[in-house]
């Protein structure tokens, strides 16, 4: 099957490929998919103290549509708040890239990756806040 122009654009020239330090408390990492299914996506978000996504990086194992979907969402999330980023749907991704029906799962994976990265960040925050609470009590 032929790829759409948009898919090719992102596939040939993917944006925000790379790795952020997953130990950084301001970084949320979402790793979704499985090698046996043919696609694994990792999306990392760097969130400012004001709660804005100031950077995003991805690395993906998968077909051209999966790579394009990752690249697209890594662009879209930048500058958004977590709540705004969480509203990005697979439908919007599929529409933007004109994904053929058999490739819709790639956009689903991209949506899952955003959600997983946000979830990871929030858990980190909760842990940090959790450990801070007793200290606050002491003070």
């Amino acid at each position, binding site marked *: 099957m032929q790829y759409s122009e948009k898919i090719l654009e992102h596939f040939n020239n993917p944006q925000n490929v790379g790795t952020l330090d997953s130990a950084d408390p301001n970084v949320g990492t979402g790793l979704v998919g499985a090698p046996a299914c043919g696609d694994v996506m990792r999306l990392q978000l760097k969130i400012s103290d004001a709660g804005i996504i100031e950077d995003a990086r991805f690395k993906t*194992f998968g077909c051209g549509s999966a790579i394009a979907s990752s690249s697209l969402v890594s662009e879209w999330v930048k500058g958004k708040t977590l709540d705004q980023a969480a509203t990005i749907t697979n439908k919007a991704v599929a529409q933007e890239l004109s994904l053929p029906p058999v490739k819709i799962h790639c956009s689903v994976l991209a949506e899952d990756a955003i959600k997983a990265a946000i979830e990871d960040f929030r858990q980190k925050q909760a842990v940090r806040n959790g450990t801070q609470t007793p200290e606050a009590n002491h003070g």
Partner: protein
Amino acid sequence: MPKARIYLDNHATTPVDERVLEAMLPYLKENFGNASSGSHAFGWEAEAAVNKARQQVAELIGAEPSEIIFTSGATESNNLALKGAVDYYKAKGNHIVTLQTEHKAVLETCKWLERVRVERMEELKALRLMQLLGRAVHEDEIPSLSQTHALQEDLLLQLWASTVQSGARVSYLPVQQDGRVCLKSFEKALQPSTVVASVGLANSEIGTLQPIDEIGALCRKHGVLFHVDAVQGAGKVPFHVEEASADLVSLSSHKLYGPKGIGALYVRKKPRIRLSPLLHGGGQERGMRSGTLNVPSIVGFGKACEIAKAEQATEATRLKALRERLWKGISSQLDFVSVNASMEHRLPGNLSIAFSFVEGDALMRELKSIAVSTGSACASDSLQPSYVLSALGLGDEVAHCSLRFGLGRFTTEAEIDETIARVTKAVLRLREISVLYEMAKQGVDLKGFQWSQH
């Protein structure tokens, strides 16, 4: 400057050799006669051309010309061999033995035969239940009613079932990690009711050569007809119907630099094997395949077989050297690459490589003007990874990462060098993007890792 296209998909099809085209042309123009027209020169010319081609095809596999039945291609040949034998020899039994890695033209024919039998059995169950209950029985009720009425032990139903002569039962044998069937388990699978065993000479995806002569000997020993799907192997590696003890052999022209739409089925005459035909009509091809003979294509197919036979040994040596060059070039520059299935028992022009941590469809896109194929699910509409690679027991992730290179008669050394350079570059770029490659490099155990399912 746009790069020239490189064709490395010679298992899918091959270009028509110039010499083949030359041989065909007169029969597309002035010599247009019907080979069955016995009353005039137009027919005689066509018949003579067909006879010559039949000889050329027969010689490729060590057969007699009269043992060659021309068909529309290998799919028809495989259908005719299996359906024809199962129907003709139904008095003997209804069992087929084949391999999980066979071509779809064999596997789907087997599945159809299985379905036919299951449907007949269901009809008989319904009939028996009606008899027992004295009322009409709906299809949906059959499973539960079969339980309550213990149809499993019903003697009358068993008697009826024993007379069912439609369809077949099929054993699909697994292969070992090298792609070959274990001879011991093959022999075990042969039953007194086995009519025919069907094994491919060479696999279309991983190029694996089966121990065909040994398999044939086992079939002989147990009185089982032996069908060889020789589509990928004939003309590429030595194959002889007597050494293989083959009773039925499928051949295809377009895998041998001949035209598409023509193939053949070898049907042994000594001892005589019979088949129920799929097509009825004018009784051509000893009554096993009616229909006006496709003279120009038959002529081309014959010529293609003649060339393949004459050049087989030198061509095999040349292709093996090119393949070696391809593999050395790739494996010396990339880590985490491996060859799928046996390198030793392999078609000279075949190389199936797993490029770990790079998805096959993406890799094919990246290679653009190099025509190869992948076992990855993402390249197929069904989203199922290659059943052949899965059958090797290497896990679906290997299928997703694999490319098949099919070298052929017109592949040059310069093309191989160009392919090495572009494949290497493409893999490196995609691994830059690949999270799995990064994890592997960091020493993460990817097999033991807990992946999220989706």
